[in-house]
């Protein structure tokens, strides 16, 4: 019985910690250390000029990105405004690298589980947003 109570206590402590982390005040600040390597910057998008791919990218954006970045990409909470000049100036290669790796300590998940071409579709669509 004591062990069950201790285990239940452990669950409560972890749940409380999770709630506390979730309730922290968060707002967007660019991460100046989240830099793609040289090899990623110049990587060309194999789907450039493919209008169908952009439409598919829009669909993917609404499925995976819109919840944090907003349907218009302007950002919610501490997620980046994808229409900002800081983001739009970045090459498709940089966006592909960022989508692939994420920035886990800042809340951006890795989307390396998506097929490579879908990640290029997302990069393509983000550049069409503004």
């Amino acid at each position, binding site marked *: 019985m004591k*062990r*069950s109570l201790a*285990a239940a206590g*452990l*669950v409560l402590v*972890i749940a409380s*910690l*999770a*709630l506390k*982390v*979730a*309730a*922290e*005040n*968060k*707002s967007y600040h660019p991460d100046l250390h989240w830099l793609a390597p040289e090899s990623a910057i110049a990587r060309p998008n194999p789907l450039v000029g493919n209008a*169908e*791919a952009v*439409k*598919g*990218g829009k*669909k*993917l954006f*609404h*499925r*995976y990105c819109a*919840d*944090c970045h907003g349907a218009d990409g302007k950002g*919610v*909470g501490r997620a980046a405004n994808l229409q900002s000049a800081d983001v739009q100036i970045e090459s498709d290669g940089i966006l592909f690298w960022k989508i*692939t*790796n*994420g*920035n*886990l*300590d*800042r*809340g*951006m*998940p*890795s*989307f*390396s*589980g*998506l*097929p*490579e*071409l*879908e990640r290029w*579709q997302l990069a393509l669509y983000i550049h069409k947003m503004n």
Partner: protein
Amino acid sequence: MRKIYLAAVCIGLLPAMPLRSQESPYFVTYDHHMEEPGNLEIATSATIGVPRAGQHAFFAPYTELEYGVLGRWTSELYLEGQSTASDSSIFTGWRLENRVRPFEREHWINPVLYFEFEDISEADKIQKEIVGHSPDLSSPNGELHRNKNRELEWKLILSSNPHDWNISENFIFEKNLSANEGVEFGYAFGASRPLASMATPNPCRLCRENFSAGVEFYGGLGSTRQFGLQDTAHYAAPVLAWQVSDNSSLRFSPGFGLTHESAPVLFRVGYVYEIQGLGRKLAQWFGGTP
């Protein structure tokens, strides 16, 4: 048997949830993808066992609540039960798992450390992982349920994503705190990929981009008392996942027993629903800035 049908109906009445293509189709194998921070994933799954002679069919449903605490920390609570034909239906226990990703960036091989505490009875039959020697599928529930096990489990998860494939290897170590059984070992390997590599321009439900398929292998490797393949259960299981909507998915896997100690077939079905941004909603409730 009637109780099995009742349990199946209850599971079927739960709100359905489809898989996101980012979701893994595996039931047993873990890959390195963590739950997105602030998201809550609710999954209801079941393991259905086809018996050998002298055994009874069983239906073992379980519910998973998975929360992305941080980008590199995912926590998950399981509630488990089972219903055995010509026997009884029982709640068999719970487990709490935590997965931590030590490296922030993607690498060729991505390790994840997994820690779990289980408080389950020996009647538990979900077979979320197979460790040690073959589980007892013959004794009645009344007898098995008297033996409560508190166990610690560790996994080393290694996972890669070469060319749209996912290849994952899990090495499992389990220590029963309630009985002196030594440390038990197990493994799980999986390979899967989406059926299409690009998203089509129009919304669709049954197109290939919403499906992923693969295969997983899992089994026990004995314990520190008797290491090896003797008296162990092993399975080969094709897996299929269908992303039903943007935040829900269905999974199915028939697992075929490879040894005499394995069940001939373990059918696994699961439905996953993801609540996005729960963390932000909680932040609003607790007075933080969303």
